């Protein structure tokens, strides 16, 4: 067991990434993820083989990530919403070339330049593709500094296993808050990557990392194969936390900072005699569809708590096939709903169907 240390969320990601064997970091300055890059800038030069490089742009950074990922080494970049938009082309190439990599989005309010306060309004971008073409990322949503660290390691593992990019979808609060965190041990299990560009050594045919297929039948085939892999991810890698759901009549669904607020509201609702529970997706792609469908068998209403104008609510409605009413409790632009606001939504949802 390693000791507990007090760390900022952004720094916890950085240290956890290094401990997961990620020795290559590329980024471009943007608030509110700055501490992550600063931590990497300090640590990487002290580690053998460690590389921190401040790229000339987000676009260059993600393409540097593409280059390292092609060699089979663990690599990451981090940014915040506007910067992650710039990375989308590169992410599409990484997905289209079936390469593992980690992209961290410490979300801020949008659209456009938006603001620098926390947000969850990049949910669509993260879970539905984001760039051009058919693809997915494995999207993990931390709700504590501990999870910032734990899910970073997991993201690298899953990305390697399924040969696809993973995203840590955090927000400004998660990035900035300090909490005690137990950092993982340094012993990443690295898998063999025969597809990697390591030089032929004149011993094998050349490896090609590429997403171009001009023959439609071939391009279709690569898409179908990729989606076979996505199916496995959906079957095996769904993660969520279930809180007070056993006898729940109102199911609150929230992730990240919204889930922490919601937990307080659920506890308060219980005190007031309302049978509320919380499902907290930890993976938002793959989305915990089955858990929600099961909840819909017994719950009479759902409340989606989001720091967006209502994005995840669409996935909830799809998961439960619109069988129960789903209401939205949200704040945007850097605002966070208070436990009282969530409680109010729970009460409405509980009363609405009586």
């Amino acid at each position, binding site marked *: 067991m390693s000791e507990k240390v007090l760390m900022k969320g952004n720094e916890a990601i950085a240290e956890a990434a290094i401990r997961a064997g990620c020795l290559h970091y590329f980024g471009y300055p943007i608030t509110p993820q700055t501490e992550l890059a600063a931590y990497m800038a300090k640590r990487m030069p002290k580690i053998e083989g460690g590389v921190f490089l401040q790229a000339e742009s987000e676009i260059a950074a993600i393409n*540097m990530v593409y280059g390292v990922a*092609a060699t089979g080494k663990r690599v990451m970049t981090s940014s915040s919403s506007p910067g992650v938009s710039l990375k989308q082309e590169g992410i599409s*190439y990484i997905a289209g*070339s079936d390469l593992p990599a980690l992209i961290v989005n410490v979300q801020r309010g949008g659209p456009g330049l938006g603001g620098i306060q926390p947000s969850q309004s990049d949910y669509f971008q993260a879970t539905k593709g984001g760039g051009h073409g058919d693809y997915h990322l494995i999207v993990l949503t931390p709700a504590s500094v501990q999870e910032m660290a734990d899910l970073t390691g997991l993201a690298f593992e899953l990305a390697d296993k399924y040969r696809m990019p993973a995203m840590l979808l955090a927000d400004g609060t998660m990035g900035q808050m300090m909490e005690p965190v137990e950092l993982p041990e340094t012993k990443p299990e690295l898998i063999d990557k025969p597809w990697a*560009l390591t*030089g032929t*050594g004149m011993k094998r045919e*050349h490896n*090609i990392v590429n997403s171009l297929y001009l023959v439609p039948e071939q391009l279709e085939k690569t898409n179908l194969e990729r989606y076979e892999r996505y199916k496995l991810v959906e079957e095996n890698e769904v993660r969520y936390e279930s809180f007070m759901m056993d006898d729940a009549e109102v199911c609150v669904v929230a992730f990240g900072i919204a889930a922490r607020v919601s937990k307080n509201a659920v506890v308060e609702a219980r005190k007031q005699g309302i049978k509320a529970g919380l499902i907290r997706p930890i993976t938002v792609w793959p989305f915990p569809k089955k858990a929600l469908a099961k909840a819909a068998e017994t719950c009479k209403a759902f409340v989606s708590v989001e720091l967006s104008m209502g994005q995840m609510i669409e996935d909830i409605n799809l998961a439960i096939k619109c069988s129960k009413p789903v209401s939205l409790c949200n704040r945007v632009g850097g605002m966070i709903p208070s436990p009282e606001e969530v409680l109010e939504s729970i009460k409405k949802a509980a009363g609405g169907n009586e």
Partner: protein
Amino acid sequence: MVVFERPHSLAKVPLHYCPGCTHGIIHRLVAQAIDDLGIEGNAIGVAPVGCAVMAYNYFTCDMIEAAHGRAPAVATGLKRADPSKIIFTYQGDGDLASIGMAETVHAATRNENITVIFVNNAIYGMTGGQMAPTSLPGQVTQTSPYGRDVSMAGYPIKVSEMLSALDGPEFIARVAVNNVKNVKNAQKIIKKAFENQVNGKGFSLVEVVSSCPTNWGKTPSDALKWVEEEMIPYYPLGVYKDKSAEKEGE
């Protein structure tokens, strides 16, 4: 006695380039340099978006296909992942000097230890002949049908001159492949650009003035004549920067 043969680093597949296009010659020169230096097994090439997009099929070393203009960033990643590998990009003028200019300048100023082969044929070939950042003033293309009007479209970018103003890069040179003498010199310079990387010297870029008979609307021989009479006077050949030679001369 064999006096001429296909370099081992050049794959035994038919190239897709148009008749009279000089990409084939430049591919051969790159492959020859890789053979001569014995670095094939250690090399990784980065293909661009443009006519050379399928270069990943033409070189026998490990290859990767980059997004449009991003080859120097991808090459930076590859090199930083393993500095013992020999990394080269092969890019056209739209890729390197328009959409990818930021990546080009910053890889150069970091003196990233990579080799960049920059093929300047003053036009977008793959997409059917649009105006390039290097199209000459007055040059007729699909998107400058009345000739490049510098008052509207600005002037061509002289990449070698521009990059050689930076403190970072090790080696910047411009060559041509329109006649035997120039091809021979290009071979020497391209080899040097790889040798520099092997010796850890840093960013080495070779601009190769090239032809595009198809999109210029010329026969292959007239195209080479146009290179001689129009392109080379605007883009003078020569070594624009050679930091090691400068140091020796001090």
